[in-house]
């Protein structure tokens, strides 16, 4: 069921390249909004900054309206300038969970008065004793070099300016995989768009809200206000989960290319989770199961307890090297995830959501 005119790789790569560090997601949201406008009735941003696209469902006369929210966070990890040090070098702190050990030699953009390209540096290795070289590489030991003198740096950069990873996405192994920054969670946003594009040719009874949430990486904050504001009857969060890579135990990871990952556990409404499995099976979509014993650390955690509680599920895309400039995923997994959500949207009826409160 290919969707004409919608190419997930182009959408994903454009989203990945856009800047959207937590708290300043505007540029990435502009890209997403442009696409959502093509497939939904109206698009708005709420007071907190979340992007909310609405598409009305078609119900038989007299049936009560109900709604499904599909949410993916659009913010990315990054950093913030904390000091303009002697020589014009910039000290910084992390926004979201970044691994300092992946930053040495990394290209970055400092969003000063104009975007400034730079490099993350540390004490030169030839000056370090071997013992010193093996010590922990903490953020305090790193700085950013933007090739400016101290006076120039003070002119161009202010403490508090945001820093993003400077890495264009790249397609791998033909066009099977894609790697780049911010795939966590532009992949989720691309899945929502895939779903919206699929629904161009499908009927659905539920009113649909496609939500690109902000500030997930610093504590699921956008999801808190979006869930309250939209107040959907059902919600599915779409995020990334750890992909299989050497040295990782099988039970902690999921294979790339083997389909979207459906979570089960206390964060997930059992009937909604079960519905997703059943749909994947009946439409012969590949899928994997992820048992999560508690907090899923995704927007699903915030949605579940909004207002009087929202039946919530979580669909994830397996991804390797999370929170680095080279987050890597398989494009087929994104397409299948989008299709799964489209089938869910199509299948929902009043009876199903009314039955959700009967455990």
């Amino acid at each position, binding site marked *: 069921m290919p969707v004409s005119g919608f190419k997930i790789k182009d959408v994903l790569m454009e989203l990945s390249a856009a800047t959207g560090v937590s708290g300043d997601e505007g540029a990435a949201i502009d890209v997403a909004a442009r696409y959502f406008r093509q497939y939904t009735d109206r698009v708005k941003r709420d007071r907190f900054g979340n992007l909310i696209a609405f598409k009305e469902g078609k119900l038989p006369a007299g049936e009560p309206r109900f709604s499904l929210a599909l949410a993916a966070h659009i913010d990315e990890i990054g950093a913030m300038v904390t000091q303009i040090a002697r020589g014009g070098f910039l000290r910084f702190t992390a926004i979201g969970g970044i691994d300092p050990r992946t930053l040495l030699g990394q*290209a970055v953009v400092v969003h000063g008065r104009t975007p400034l390209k730079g490099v993350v540096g540390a004490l030169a*290795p*030839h000056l370090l004793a071997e013992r010193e070289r093996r010590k922990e590489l903490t953020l305090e030991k790193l700085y950013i070099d933007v090739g400016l003198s101290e006076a120039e740096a003070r002119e161009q950069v202010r403490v508090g300016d945001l820093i993003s990873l400077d890495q264009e996405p790249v397609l791998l192994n033909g066009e099977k995989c894609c790697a780049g920054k911010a795939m966590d969670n532009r992949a989720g946003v691309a899945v929502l768009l895939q779903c919206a594009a699929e629904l161009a040719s499908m009927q659905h009874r539920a009113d649909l809200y496609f939500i690109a949430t902000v500030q997930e990486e610093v504590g699921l904050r956008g999801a808190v206000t979006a869930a309250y504001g939209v107040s959907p009857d059902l919600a599915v969060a779409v995020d990334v989960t750890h992909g299989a890579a050497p040295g990782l135990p099988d039970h902690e990871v999921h294979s790339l290319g083997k389909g979207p990952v459906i979570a089960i556990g206390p964060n997930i409404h059992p009937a909604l989770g079960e519905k997703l499995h059943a749909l994947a099976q009946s439409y012969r979509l590949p899928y994997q199961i992820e048992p999560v014993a508690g907090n899923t650390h995704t927007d699903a955690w915030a949605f579940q307890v909004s207002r009087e509680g929202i039946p919530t599920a979580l669909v994830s895309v397996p991804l390797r*090297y999370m929170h680095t400039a080279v987050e890597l995923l398989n494009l087929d997994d994104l397409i299948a995830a989008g299709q799964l959500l489209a089938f869910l949207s199509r299948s929902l009826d009043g009876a199903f959501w009314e039955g959700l409160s009967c455990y």
Partner: protein
Amino acid sequence: MLLAELANLPGVSGGEKRVRQAIVEALAGCPVEMRTDNIGNLLVRKGPRRSPHVMLAAHMDEVGLMVVAIEKSGHLKFKPVGGIDSRVLAAKRVRVGAAAVPGVIGAKAVHLQKDDDRKKPYEIEDLFIDIGAAGKEEAEALVKIGDYATFDTAATPIGSGFWRGKAFDDRAGCAVLLQLLRDPELTGFSAVFTVQEEIGSRGAITASYALQPDRALIIETTAAADTPGTGEDFSSTVLGAGPALSVMDRSVIVDREMLTELIATAREAGLPFQFRRFTGGGTDAGAVALAGEGVKTAVVSTPCRYIHSPHSILKESDLQATAALVKAWLLRGER
């Protein structure tokens, strides 16, 4: 910019062909004689041989990685070629093999590491190249054992007059050497673009044997540590202060007469220069100085931050001043 074109090419030690070809193309139409020797050096003569016979040298190769195993999962294990600080590798983009297959350097996601492991810098054994292959068979269709990998980095101007890019060590030297060979005011010298400097100046050994110069000037790129946390006394070199003259390193004690000449040349021409205030590290000078019955040898370097990493930084004015100093020194020798 010549530097950017040269730096963007892959040329890990032993695989310098693309760089050599680019240099040969850049010299088309110049009044020079060129030949490639058995190890891959490009030997160039401009104008009639003079006495003393002067040889300039810059190395074409860069540090990089070599694929040594293809895992069942399709991931590639690798070894460094030349001196790479393993701490710069995690989460960087690479290109593998002659077909420049894109890949990334992966490690276990930080979320899935134990607290103790998070405190340790990544070592080569913790890392692998991921080309998006779903298994060994898919990987083998794209790459093979022995393929080189280079950082997938495009040289970019940054800040006020700086460049960011890979392999400036020593494509910066190659760019200077090319500029001098194309300069119509200069003639009567030999130039060699050497291979395999990073694994022990292998090319310089055969090149200096072949050319048997009386005097050699090595045009290099050297580490600058004019950065936070390093005391001024330990910076070795500073960006923006002009070419660095070596006095001594692990491989050579620079010929006093040539060093004195270079200093005098810079002073007479009003060119900036600095001394390389560090005695570690080595260059082709070590091999060249011991060629035949010995060659008077000196080293002039463009200072560069973060050498041997995916993104080094140099200042364009230093590169130009390096070229100007070598040119003035060559002209001085003609007087």
